[in-house]
């Protein structure tokens, strides 16, 4: 059991070092939601009237409404970025060092997922500190009670990313993930507008938003930030995490890792021969 703990802490340590050395990654992770908060939200504040909706007990500004969505946006992009890093590690061959470890492969993948989730949460709290200064101030205790919700959502999106990375054949294909996964997940959710607004506009879009697990992730975080519990959102997130994780572990193929690296070696040989 201790060996597993040392393994988890080692993977966490490496992910943290890599994150710390790529500080521009933190900057880009923060710039995106801050632009939405400062520019987009200012423009749409007047256009979108917000009624009193749960978990808020009064009228709120649009900025206050979208902060949980933007928090989940950070987690979403990080989850997908960790899948990108898995594809990169596979292409570059560094994944092989992880796979030749004597620890169970499912444990290694779960450790990597948990480490990425922790790094994402650090970014979220930095974002929340900035929004606090900007004027969006959820209860202090809410910041603490949101922690388990954030961890659950980070795990869910990381597991989805892991599953996706198993299906991505080349690094170049990742652009497709942006168009076909990230944007639909984000825009077809309650991150930017409450679902009753969507229902007024289009019933079928409303139903799509309702079955989108990302909507439930946003609501789980929103409720937790305001010291309330959303059981159905937790259930959807937990189930999605479990399904994605099981599928990711089952579909993960070390053979593919080795083949990619062998192909890279062969092309290196060909280049050397030329």
């Amino acid at each position, binding site marked *: 059991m*201790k*060996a597993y703990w040392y393994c988890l802490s080692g993977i966490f340590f490496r992910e943290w070092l890599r994150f710390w050395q790529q500080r521009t990654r933190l900057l880009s992770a923060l710039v995106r939601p801050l632009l939405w908060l400062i520019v987009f939200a200012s423009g749409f504040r007047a256009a979108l009237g917000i009624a009193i909706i749960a978990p808020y007990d009064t009228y709120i500004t649009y900025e206050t409404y979208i902060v949980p969505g933007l928090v989940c946006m950070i987690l979403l992009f990080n989850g997908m970025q960790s899948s990108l890093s898995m594809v990169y590690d596979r292409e570059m061959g560094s994944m092989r060092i992880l796979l030749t470890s004597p620890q169970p492969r499912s444990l290694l993948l779960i450790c990597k997922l948990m480490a990425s989730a922790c790094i994402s949460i650090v970014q979220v709290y930095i974002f929340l500190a900035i929004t606090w200064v900007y004027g969006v101030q959820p209860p202090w205790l809410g910041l603490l009670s949101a922690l388990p919700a954030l961890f659950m959502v980070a795990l869910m999106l990381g597991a989805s990313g892991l599953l996706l990375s198993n299906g991505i054949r080349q690094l170049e294909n990742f652009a497709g993930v942006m168009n076909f996964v990230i944007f639909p997940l984000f825009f077809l959710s309650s991150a930017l507008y409450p679902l009753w607004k969507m229902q007024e506009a289009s019933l079928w879009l409303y139903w799509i938003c309702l079955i989108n697990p990302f909507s439930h992730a946003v609501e789980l975080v929103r409720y937790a930030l305001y010291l309330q519990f959303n059981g159905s959102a937790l259930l959807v997130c937990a189930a999605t995490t479990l399904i994605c994780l099981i599928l990711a572990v089952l579909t993960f193929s070390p053979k593919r890792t080795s083949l990619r690296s062998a192909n890279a070696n062969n092309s290196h040989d060909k280049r*050397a021969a030329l």
Partner: protein
Amino acid sequence: MNALEVSDVSFSYGAREVLHALSFSCPKGRLTALLGPNGAGKTTLISLLTCLFPIQKGQIHVSEHDLSRTPRLALRELGVVFQQSTLDLDLSVEQNLRYHASLHGFSPTDAKQRINDELARQHLSDRRHDKVRLLNGGHRRRVEITRALLHNPRLLLLDEASVGLDPASRQALQAHLRSLCAERDIAVLSTTHLLDEIGPEDHVLILNQGALVANGSIAAIQAQYQQQSLPQIFAQLTQKEAL
């Protein structure tokens, strides 16, 4: 006792058989050179030995542990250096080694002790805080070998580890590997297609189109082929099959 026993191992990608009924062993305290032209099946064999590919037919034992039945025990006895560098360039030498130690389940104290000992043995103690990106190719290879030896394996696998190194670094690497065999009584299996890397004491395996066409000491192989030189034997064995 042999550190590696491969018995009747075959492997296919779909209908195409790339390894055919391989049987050989790697003795302790000796370097075994696995020779073969590109596409002979060397990397596939390394992938089988490191559990990256499943064993389809035959048996592989690493220090008496069956790779199919007890892969985790077998992997504990195995150190690997892949052809393509697997070091994290943005981390220091020590950080790379700490990561590897944690993957083997060593406590931080144990890992620190092992890293100190191994870096001192490989004369790399003064480079421990250097980022891998700043090291030259020869030093990077030495760091990878240091990492592969950190958990004290019985068998060290090197997949074309000298590719990309200048002649002096290649020579130093070969000398280093032979000293490891002598001092630590471990078996080294090194794949290559560079015949000048083979020493007179080495055990030689020649792989061509997935089949083992020569297996033994250089003297034994030369006796079998009317005292021709190793390059001549290699050309004869590999071209004959290709034609």
